[in-house]
């Protein structure tokens, strides 16, 4: 356990005052031990406390309520997270009442379109189609 002499104790009082809560944490215990057994240390502390008491009488007025209100008014609005953003997007689309039927209609159209296209497709003979694409010379129009 470290001990403290009266000189160091006096320096502590000169710098930090009489209240042990303001003393450096590393030296507080040793200072209190000295204080417990030394009348001279107690007297030094009593004198230091007089300046502390004087200091403590200077209490600035608290800030006006208007300042608090002003600062609360300047609090930034909450930023929407991605869930909120998706909710807003869905609402902008009209919600379930509009977007739901539109989604169902697009699904139905997607399912029906291929069969409708099959019925309207033009049948070309496979060989002719390939020959036309490849510009095969055997075709009669290329051999006048």
């Amino acid at each position, binding site marked *: 356990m470290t001990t403290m002499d009266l000189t160091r104790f006096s320096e502590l009082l*000169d710098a930090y005052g009489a209240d042990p809560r303001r003393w450096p944490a590393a030296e507080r215990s040793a200072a209190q031990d000295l204080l417990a057994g030394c009348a001279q240390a107690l007297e030094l502390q009593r004198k230091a406390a007089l300046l502390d008491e004087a200091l403590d009488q200077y209490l600035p007025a608290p800030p006006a309520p208007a300042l608090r209100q002003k600062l609360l008014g300047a609090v*930034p609005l909450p930023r929407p997270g991605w869930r909120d953003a998706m909710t807003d997007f869905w609402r902008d689309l009209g919600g379930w009442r509009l977007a739901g039927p539109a989604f169902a209609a697009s699904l139905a159209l997607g399912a029906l379109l291929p069969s409708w296209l099959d019925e309207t497709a033009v049948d070309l003979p496979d060989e002719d189609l390939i020959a036309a694409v490849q510009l095969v010379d055997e075709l009669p129009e290329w051999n006048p």
Partner: protein
Amino acid sequence: MNSSDDPDLPAIERIRNGDAGGCRVLLERHLDRLHALATRLLDSSADADEVCQDAFMRAWQQAPKWQAGKARFSTWLHQVVLNLSRDRLRARRASLPLDAIAEMADEDTPEQAHGRADRAQSVRNGLRQLPERQREALVLCHFQSLSNIEAAALLELSVDALESLLARARKGLRAALDGQGLAPGAAT
């Protein structure tokens, strides 16, 4: 400076999640204390209002980006108020002659000044007369109850240098009070 047990972290987390209620918590917790700090440093409640406004605007911006582990949020707020107060004092010195600064510091009306206790007014006068660094050290350690390590870090000093500043500040203040017939006693 241990920040792992920073009591402001839950409020900061709320702000990060877009909950403005976190700002209200920080305001309720720190406004009075920071306003008192600025008032004692600047000797002006009106200037302290403006410093606190600037400080909390910065806090709202900083909170979502705050990284726990470096320092306590309240220590950072103290640093902001300290820096803003220094800026104001510098601006005062640059724009006004010394006589005008002394007059401006006495911003209370005669009625308000009359209503204050003599000793409180004397302490206020004594603080005003201290060199800026001594006043900062005394206000941070005595009135704001920061530890010697926190105060030394804010003032960018060693703990020994802080202790020396504090001792000179208290000695100067005691002398100022003695001069006004309000001797608070001597430590040694």
